[in-house]
């Protein structure tokens, strides 16, 4: 069967596009405390490289299995972890809705993240795709699952800000 995109009513499609864009802007604008709110309570967020993802392995470089764990990540980043200040810029394209199963929308989006360090060094930190399961809670789209599949196995230095 050919992989394709599902045609959805303009409204739903627009809401999903907005969720994906709002998510990236929240991270890039350092509104990280908002990040957990893009997910339902019983959620899953994982950053894993393509090789592991394709081999069906489960361990990547971040793995949160509840909204509480997402909050803890951000609190740790603000209060505990030591790193050089830096920010991300997400470039996203080609969002497609692969499949709709009941309330779950399976969505994929390609991304590139450029990392800028405090002294100005810039690099392509990460490229890959988001593999999402999006659901609607009180009419609002939320991630039930977001798997960040990174093309490279390498993380340069460290990863503290979520992608």
């Amino acid at each position, binding site marked *: 069967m050919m992989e394709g995109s599902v045609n959805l009513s303009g409204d739903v499609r627009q809401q999903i596009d907005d969720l994906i864009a709002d998510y990236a802007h929240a991270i890039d604008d350092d509104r990280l405390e908002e990040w957990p709110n893009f997910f339902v309570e019983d959620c899953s967020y994982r950053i894993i490289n393509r090789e592991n993802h394709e081999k069906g392995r489960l361990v990547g*470089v971040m*793995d949160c299995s509840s909204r509480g764990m997402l909050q803890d990540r951000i609190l740790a980043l603000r209060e505990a972890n030591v790193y050089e200040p830096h920010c991300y810029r997400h470039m996203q394209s080609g969002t497609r809705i692969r499949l709709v199963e009941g309330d779950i929308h399976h969505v994929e989006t390609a991304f590139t993240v450029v990392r800028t360090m405090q002294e100005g060094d810039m690099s392509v930190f990460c490229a890959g795709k988001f593999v999402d399961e999006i659901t609607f809670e009180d009419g609002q789209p939320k991630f039930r699952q977001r798997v960040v599949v990174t093309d490279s196995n390498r993380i340069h230095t460290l990863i503290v800000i979520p992608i």
Partner: protein
Amino acid sequence: MNETTQIKWPDDGVSRIPYQIYTDPKNYEREQESIFRGPIWSFVGMGQEIENPGDYQTTYIGDTPVIVLRDLDGEVQVIVNRCAHRGNLVCISKEGTTEELTCVYHNWRYDLQGNLQSVAFGKGVGKTGGMPDDFDQSKHGLQRLRTETYAGLIFATFSDTVAPLGEWLGEEMRENIDRVVGRGMVLLGTYSQYMPNNWKLYMENVRDSYHASILHMFQATFRINRLSMKGGIKLSDNGWHHISYSIAETDREEDQYDSKKLRAVKDGYSLADPTLVKGWREFDCGTTLAIQSVYPNFVVQQITNSLALRLCLPKGPEECELLWWVFGTPEDTDEQRDIRIKQSNMIGPGGVISMEDGVVGGWIQRGTRRDQDKTTIVEMGGRDVASSTEGRATEVSIRGFWRGYRDCMGI
């Protein structure tokens, strides 16, 4: 060796380390000869990753590319990944399965033990060209290294004189490997961390138990304290390998691991989801943490139930790449596997406990690039190299690393 370009060690000990050792390109070249091709065994991969005859993976010893494979007789071989003809990489892929090693450039073919089998157009074309009559194929195979496997871990060496692997590791080091990987490994994930610092800065960090509760603030911030621990540092007889460990002193599982009973102190933050730090008493000996470094650049890790192997590859004087293998055991229940996955959040480049280890080396690299004649100070806990029952206020395992370094480098 050219004495005039050799780094001059500041004294006859291992408590002063010259900054130059982290940047000097000539010293880097010498390390490749004297350490990575010297009297050491290098970890190159897991036997189970090349399970069947013909399976191979490519990796590095130091910065020399090598192929790790299982030959058609089922024997593990480690072969330098360089064609005898003009030096092309013989295996391009990271992994695969093959019945022979064929160089794509001019089609020289080798068997899986590295013996040269045929040379394309070796007899010429239409009676002209071809290799000279005295070209002896049997003398132009791939370079095959001495190889040994211990508890499923494959090691190789360029050295003809280094002791057999088990002896070289010594009993205490073998025991810890048996404990952590001896039950078998189920690979849960692999990844790499690329760092802007000399490889030795990372290996010092691995052996640096002094910084653990100071640089890494996650546990303190969230008041994750485990009570009644004792710990210490074991060094191999020559000081080259180390294990830093903690052992829970009580047998009552709840006392150490139940996240609900973690000590809460005012002003501390608490975890919204404390299942992150949930674990179980996995080892009868009560060991809750054991970081083992096998000289010079291999690490066997147990942090509660988070098990991993790490290999730090030099990538030029001022860069290195840390490869991680995160694993569980074949006996793990689903619940135990899930706990290991959760605990994987503590480690690696995104590890809430230890991400700082990826960045501090780069800061030292930047801090020490100037004033190359100056030195660091490594004398917490004395100036000698010997096992210690004090785990935190000592840098003895770092001194052990430099003992091994000076032994190998002859400086």
